């Protein structure tokens, strides 16, 4: 039966793998915004987030032959993104960096003016995010802001679906605790 439904990400990536590189343009249009948002929050640096996002798409092109038939395009893309972000931090500071440590490093790179106290809810919440445990923040970015399923988060973080669910909900509670604490703190 013929259908006018747009092709799935997986179908587009399979086409890219088979040499139809124009389909990568469509994948870019669909995903570059959320991917950039994820990287911007992960690194705390917009310029770095753009550079890393470009590298992610470069790697998708370069390693297109390694894309598997299991249909997990989003998980694959974010898996690459985590690795690219890790490479970025490794170049910035030539010491061993584990992907799990990324968030802590992002904190260090945030601009001083962003740490200025603000009663604005968004600013407070951003600071609460910064204060989260690195693993908690990452799982929250993926599950809540990127709206990925726990199966996808689990594939990206290389853990079980159950562990991804528990970590995500623990992260939400931690975020709430930090947010409430910041709301009660006096202006500095």
């Amino acid at each position, binding site marked *: 039966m013929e259908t006018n439904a747009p092709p799935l990400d997986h179908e587009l990536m399979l086409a890219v793998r088979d040499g139809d590189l124009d389909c990568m343009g469509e994948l870019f249009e669909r995903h570059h915004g959320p991917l950039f948002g994820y990287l911007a929050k992960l690194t705390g640096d*917009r310029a770095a987030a753009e550079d890393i996002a470009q590298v992610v798409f470069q790697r998708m092109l370069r390693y297109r032959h390694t894309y598997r038939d299991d249909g997990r395009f989003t998980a694959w893309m974010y898996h690459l993104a985590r690795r690219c972000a890790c490479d970025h931090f490794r170049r910035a500071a030539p010491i061993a960096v584990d992907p799990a440590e990324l968030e802590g490093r992002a904190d260090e790179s945030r601009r001083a003016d962003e740490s200025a106290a603000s009663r604005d809810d968004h600013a407070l919440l951003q600071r609460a995010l910064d204060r989260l445990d690195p693993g908690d923040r990452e799982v929250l970015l993926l599950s809540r802001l990127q709206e990925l399923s726990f199966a996808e988060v689990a594939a990206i973080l290389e853990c079980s679906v159950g562990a991804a669910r528990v970590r995500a909900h623990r992260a939400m509670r931690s975020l709430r605790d930090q947010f409430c604490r910041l709301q009660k703190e006096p202006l500095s």
Partner: protein
Amino acid sequence: MKCQTCLDQMAELADARLDEGKAAAVRAHIDGCPGCRREFESLSRTLEVLDTIPAAAPSHRLRARVMGDIETEKLALRHAGWASSIRAAADSRRGRRLPWGIPLLQALGACALVVLGFALGDRAATQRQLADLRSRVDTIGQLYEQSVLQKRAAGDRLETVLAAGATRSPDERVIGGLINSMAFDPSVNVRLNALNALYVHADQEVVRAGVLACLRREANPLVQVAMIDFLVAARERGAAPELRRLVVDAQTDVDVRESARRAIEQL
């Protein structure tokens, strides 16, 4: 339901990932328990603020850069197609196959082989192939320049070239990238540095063929002289026809002409 059970499932409820049966039970407890209700309201409020944080948007440069990458990769695919056909023709003329894997390397190498074939005979057929190849290289050059310009600043490209030059044991891809930069980069500085980086690989036939092919399309006298010096240093006798052309061509820069004349004598 006990408060602890409610608290355990509260995050899943707020995240709208709890199945309907469990969600109803947790909601019922929350409705009747002021403590759990306060907990749930604070959690919901936090997630509400989180969800409304304005999404960061990338600049328009990201799109231009990625689209440039895609176009460059498409070019590489196209090179692979036509370069293999030209290489096959050149191989059959020379009776051997070359072990090159990089598409543009293949193209540039094939260009040099066609030139060699031109020198050896079958002039009419080879002339047609050579003209066709030149036309294709020029077209590719324009496309490459567009994609490169969109992609990265000259300083970044220069850094890439310098890093490639510092690689101790470069593979075909690295050498192919250097030849690409020498052939098509719009910056004279980048082209010169790519050429310098290739000096240590002058013993490779593909590198010499690449420099020779690039000399043919190079318009900047400074780079032309540097390429001629390279070919002399590499004892590339196959460069003689191109050097003679430069000597007799009235359009050639006077310094380039003199450099080519001296190179012919040395070769």
